[in-house]
């Protein structure tokens, strides 16, 4: 056996190891080598191109008792978000802003990707989603300036983790936000220093007199803003010593990248926020390419939002 070339055929390890028949034993014993073998040939283990994201679908209005809900499937990653509404008083420093509270949880059956194996990953994901939604939503949640505002309670449930939870979670929050019906002052009345519902909010949607409700919802729908994110793994091309972007890395690929770049794009203004950490230094041309990929992804997702 030629050990220097890693040729173990003479020993027939497959008969010794308890491996599924369909899996390549190299993939099990040395996952990094398995993935690198694909990358060196400009391919990916799941057959995608480097600039191709996994198929993405959204399903809205899944939950009956939530103000808004959405399920996002990005490849095998599945994230469910439910939004519920509370009405309260605004903070004195922001009398015309509402409030957003985000909580992230996972099912015990969700598979562990490279990200979730890091300590306190869900806390960090929660902090990131909280910041993204805090930048976008509070100005839209005002009812009566200084007196009443809406608090959105956003519950994100990770149903299945197959990599790139950040993008799927943010898209799920945005889809649920789009699906959310916000109460307005048309549904409320002020009496004796308190706010009261005029009628049941849900029944007003099915009410025959839907003109006002429809108009109000259309107005609020138009004022809603959305953000999407695109996460890319950074990989060094050994042959050309250049940098490759792996768009929407799977859990298999996430563990072996040299860095992670996330661009958050606002769909209306196309302004960006750049989050990057890695051992590879990026130049201006790399960021320009990444921005182009992110805008392309935004164009794809506009139809979903």
């Amino acid at each position, binding site marked *: 056996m030629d050990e220097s070339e890693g040729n173990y055929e003479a020993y027939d390890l497959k008969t010794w190891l308890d491996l599924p028949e369909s899996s390549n034993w190299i993939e099990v014993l040395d996952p990094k080598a398995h993935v690198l073998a694909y990358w060196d040939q400009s391919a990916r283990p799941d057959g995608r191109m480097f600039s191709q994201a996994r198929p993405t679908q959204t399903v809205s209005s899944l939950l009956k008792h939530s103000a808004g809900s959405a399920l996002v499937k990005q490849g095998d990653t599945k994230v469910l978000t439910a939004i519920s509404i509370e009405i309260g008083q605004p903070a004195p420093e922001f009398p015309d802003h509402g409030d957003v509270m985000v909580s992230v949880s996972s099912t015990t059956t969700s598979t562990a990707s490279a990200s979730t194996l890091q300590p306190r990953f869900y806390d960090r994901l929660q902090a990131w989603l909280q*910041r993204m939604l805090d930048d976008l939503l509070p100005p839209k949640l005002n009812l009566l300036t200084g007196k009443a505002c809406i608090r959105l309670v956003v519950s994100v449930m990770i149903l299945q983790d197959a990599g790139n939870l950040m993008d799927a979670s943010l898209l799920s929050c945005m889809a649920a936000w789009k699906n959310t019906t916000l109460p307005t002052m048309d549904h409320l009345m002020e009496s004796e220093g308190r706010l009261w519902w005029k009628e049941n909010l849900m029944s007003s949607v099915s009410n025959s007199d839907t003109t006002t409700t429809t108009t109000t919802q259309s107005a609020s729908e138009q004022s809603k803003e959305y953000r999407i994110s695109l996460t890319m793994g950074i990989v060094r091309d050994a042959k050309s010593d250049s940098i490759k972007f792996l768009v929407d890395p799977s859990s298999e690929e996430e563990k072996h990248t040299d860095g992670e770049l996330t661009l958050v*794009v606002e769909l209306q203004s196309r302004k*960006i926020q*750049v989050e*990057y950490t890695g051992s590879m*230094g990026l130049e201006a041309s790399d960021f320009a390419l990444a921005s182009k990929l992110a805008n392309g992804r935004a164009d794809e997702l506009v139809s979903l939002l």
Partner: protein
Amino acid sequence: MSTKRRDGRSHGALRQLTCELSSLQRADGSALWKCGSTHVLGAVYGPIAPLNMAKEQEESIVTVLIKSGKSEEVTDEHKTFLTKILTNCIDVAKYPRTVVQVVLQIIQSDGSLVSCLLHAAVAALMDAGVELLYLPVATTCLVFGSNSSNSIWLDPMAAEEEEDNDNAIVTLVNNSRQPNKVLGSHTIGTSGISLNQFLACQQVATKACPAIPAFWRLAIEQKVQRESQTLWAN
């Protein structure tokens, strides 16, 4: 938005820097880093064996703990960002089955906090003698969202950061040996920035990068000189 800075600095000027090494006796390395009115005390413990044997890995594990009087100052995102930057710059392969713990205490915060935290951590790591692959240099830029002249202010104070909600704060980390390459980026802002603004921040960071390593070198030279005078005084 005022076109002049509150402390009279130009748009591309850094605040006064101060660095005091080995300020703590029990830590393996420590540094008191002051940038204007932002003061951070960094301490490094390690490389040491982890308490839990199960956590031993082929490479050293870097943990960052940030202590602050205000809980909203520092988020999990900041800790993750700093942990990843420091893990990439430390030669972790050289210290297998160990932990390098970096503790950062925010004494006073007046803007550009993430940059100061990173610089204090790197100074403390150098004081501890931990081998680094390169020196990461952080630059904080304030980008005006509503300003037609699209100016960028370097090293903003807290009052400048909070002046307008439409502004964005971009923290870039560069390699001191290759200032034109970005190793880390963190953006905070309600509205985000355009690509051109981000690339302009990168240019500003490239120009400002050489200043910090030069100051680190000065601080270390002064420390070595002080210690040699103390040791060989008699």
